[in-house]
């Protein structure tokens, strides 16, 4: 897995205003109404999305991901950062630095 922990310095990620999501048993389905595309997030990425929508701060989110995914801090950071970067690249999140 890529180490994203240094890529996201001073970055903010916000939900694209045209993105909606649906919670499923096996993850979260994102729907981009403007780009007309969808993306299914399995776990633990679905948990990252869920925690972000609930307004959890980054540090707390990484802490929770360590428990949800049973991984160490670095790995949890990588999961969170990788997920944020990838969703920003695909237009589901808007990134500002």
């Amino acid at each position: 897995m890529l180490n994203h922990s240094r890529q996201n310095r001073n970055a903010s990620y916000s939900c694209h205003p045209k993105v909606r999501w649906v919670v499923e048993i096996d993850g979260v389905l994102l729907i981009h109404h403007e780009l007309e595309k969808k993306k299914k997030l399995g776990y633990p990425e679905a948990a990252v999305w869920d925690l972000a929508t609930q307004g959890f701060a980054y540090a707390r989110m990484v802490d929770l991901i360590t428990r949800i995914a049973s991984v160490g801090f670095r790995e949890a950071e990588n999961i969170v950062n990788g997920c944020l970067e990838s969703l920003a690249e695909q237009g589901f999140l808007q990134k500002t630095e």
Partner: protein
Amino acid sequence: MANISITTKCNKKCRYCFASNSDNFMEGQTFEQTLDFLERSGIKEVRILGGEPTLHPGFSVFVRAALNRGFGILLFSNGYMPESALCFLEELPAEKVKILVNVVTNPESFDGLDKRLVSLFQRLNTKTIPGLNIDTPSIQLDFLLDIVLGFNTMRKVRLGLAHPKAEGGNHFLHPRYYPAVGRKIAEFSSKARPYGVGILFDCGFVPCMFPESSFSSIGPEMAELGKRCNPILDILPDGQVASCFPLASLQQEMLREDLTDTELRNVFSKKQETFRSMMLYKKCSNCTYRQHGHCTGGCLSASMQRQRFSKFTLTVPDCQGTLLSHFF
């Protein structure tokens, strides 16, 4: 199949209705264009609805025009039609005209049926099919069987579910109530079958709402029930076409002279591809009915009501690694 809404005007105020109850009337030329469209699509039946279609000043002219071109008529009415429309329909041959009467006031029993509806069923009897749009789990259905047997209507009843508009704003039957409604339909079906009375199901019914023990009494329709969320093609009074009324805000297409129903359906299906992964319940993703091809996940418009949105922003601090090691 395609439905033609010739007016949004109505004389009732059903809380689940998609129409705006305004004086929108389809023009004669647009109606002719829709008949051309049906003809080149090989569709033999004109499905006329509203609002209350009999309130259109050109109602009888439209019906005559369709009959003269060899179409059969399926009319959707609330039954509260002007006397002139009632007389006109009385005169038409039963083999060419069917009238789905949506009983908008769900009476507790047959005795509670409004006098005007009693008169309509008496006069149009064998041309009619009584029906109900279900917008609450506290429905009574037995009166429908009484209507069929008491007035000698066609041996069918039509049931519809009140679906939400994609953009929201109308009253609808929440999918959490579907199992309660399914049980009532199953009971009704077991009473109706011995009289040879079957159920015509509109779109959006799903297998998981019915007790499995009732599948055989519901009949062969059961196999197809969960696969009925497809572009219906609802043609609006201004000649625009929507996939169906609830999805009208997502996309509308002009009724172009070169398009057939199949081509239009493909246009809508393509647009809906992104949304089709949304399904009625969380449990749909693991559902065996879906895995075996018996259900596609219910009404798309109802499924879209599950969408969430929030304006979250997550800030990733510039010293994240260090901060974290202190934090823990």
